[in-house]
């Protein structure tokens, strides 16, 4: 086949570029065994195990199910994104893609889209499983809307923190730190309700985005509306975006 190299650079439509990038990133994440364990097997094990064991540790299944949704958002938004981006930076993937029509903004938008799609898939699958196992949420439109807003803001905060980590540290350090952060976040409001923590720690923990998300989801599952977590996650979202913008480096 004879190729013609006469310059004819025409970018694809922006939507097609972003879909291509999101599909590539999501495919790579889901093909990675470790990421799959983190994204699906571990939360599914917590959900199914919790169905039979949660009552013994004082956490009802009705609270555990929404907590697991918060858990997958925490893992996908922070840990998965940080680790994958850290290695993309190390392997000059970001450098290469910045010199395509996608550009820096497209890379970030495509990443956001891939993480959103993965998280949506996780939540849908886990919610269906939870319903089969007996989760019966109270359906309140306002509580659902607040949960959606807090989820978006919290994901913004998590991804900002993940990008700040990935864009400023060595990928090995990011790998370790993101996993430690993931584990540390689980008792800090993601899986455990703030009320289950020692009294002295409840106020500071409730100001974390992990607790704001977990508490909102648990409340929404009961049909209750919490407003303070909107402010908490909005503040973290702005702070994390500012931090990522300040420290992120495209090359290692």
């Amino acid at each position: 086949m004879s190729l013609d190299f006469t310059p004819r650079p025409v970018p694809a439509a922006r939507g097609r570029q972003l879909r291509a990038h999101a599909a590539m990133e999501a495919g790579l994440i889901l093909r990675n065994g470790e990421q799959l364990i983190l994204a699906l097997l571990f939360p599914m094990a917590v959900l199914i195990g919790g169905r039979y064991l949660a009552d013994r540790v004082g956490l009802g299944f009705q609270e555990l199910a929404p907590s697991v949704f918060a858990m997958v958002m925490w893992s996908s938004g922070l840990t998965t994104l940080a680790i994958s981006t850290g290695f993309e930076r190390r392997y000059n993937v970001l450098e290469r893609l910045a010199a395509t029509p996608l550009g820096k903004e497209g890379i970030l938008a495509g990443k956001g889209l891939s993480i959103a799609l993965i998280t949506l898939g996780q939540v849908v699958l886990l919610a269906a499983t939870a319903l089969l196992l007996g989760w019966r949420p109270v359906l309140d439109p306002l509580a659902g809307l607040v949960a959606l807003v807090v989820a978006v803001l919290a994901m913004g905060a998590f991804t900002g923190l993940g990008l700040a980590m990935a864009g400023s540290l060595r990928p090995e350090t990011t790998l370790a730190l993101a996993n430690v952060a993931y584990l540390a976040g689980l008792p800090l409001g993601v899986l455990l309700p703030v009320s289950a923590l020692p009294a002295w720690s409840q106020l500071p923990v409730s100001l974390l985005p992990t607790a704001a998300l977990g508490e909102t989801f648990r409340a929404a599952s009961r049909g209750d509306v919490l407003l303070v977590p909107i402010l908490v996650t909005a503040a973290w979202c702005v702070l994390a975006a500012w931090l990522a913008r300040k420290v992120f480096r495209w090359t290692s």
Partner: protein
Amino acid sequence: MTIALSARDLRLSFGARKALDGLSLEAESGRVTALLGPNGAGKTTFIRCATALLTPESGELSVFGHAPGSNEARNLVGLMPQATGAWAAVTPSRLLGYLSRLYADPQPVDGMMALLDIDEFAGTPYRRLSGGQQQAVNLAGALIGRPALVFLDEPTAGLDPRARKTTWDLIRRVRDAGVAVLLTTHNMQEAEELSDHVAIVHKGRVRAHGRVGDLTRDTGSLEEAFLFHTEETS
């Protein structure tokens, strides 16, 4: 002749180290411009400025008259990074298919893979490819969008003689088709074989530039010219 890339008095420091110290350079369409220089001379830093990964502290830089990183500029360029440049688990066919989807009128993926003998390892994860195979994939990725300006950062480093010849032939074809090629190399023979214009860069500044014949007139060889212009005292 169209000026594809124009840099004037670029300056950029990393802490106390001056990575670019008044670098000025032009690259034209249908020409191969080679950047020669020791490690750390500022060649890769310059390319990163041209693709907006880094921002010079001062100076003027444009890609076909557009600001680096603008929509117009990044649509026109292709980049072959110095090392890796791909996800570890991705296969060449998947990577090139993905890159082609970023363009409305890309080169055919199968044709590019056949041209560079990539189809032999098209289904192998990138991390398992040899250095030469990775270079071939990176070169294909740089050209798949039919760029008007292509940056090739050490395109033949680590290649065997046959693969190097294939790469050189392809670079000549691309140049003859009207693409502006900016390549960095440590290989003097490569610069002599391919370049229409050579710039010797040292400590962030172009110390000498011109056609190979111009640069070798006094010194006898490009290597001698390189050594002369990159003396530590210069």
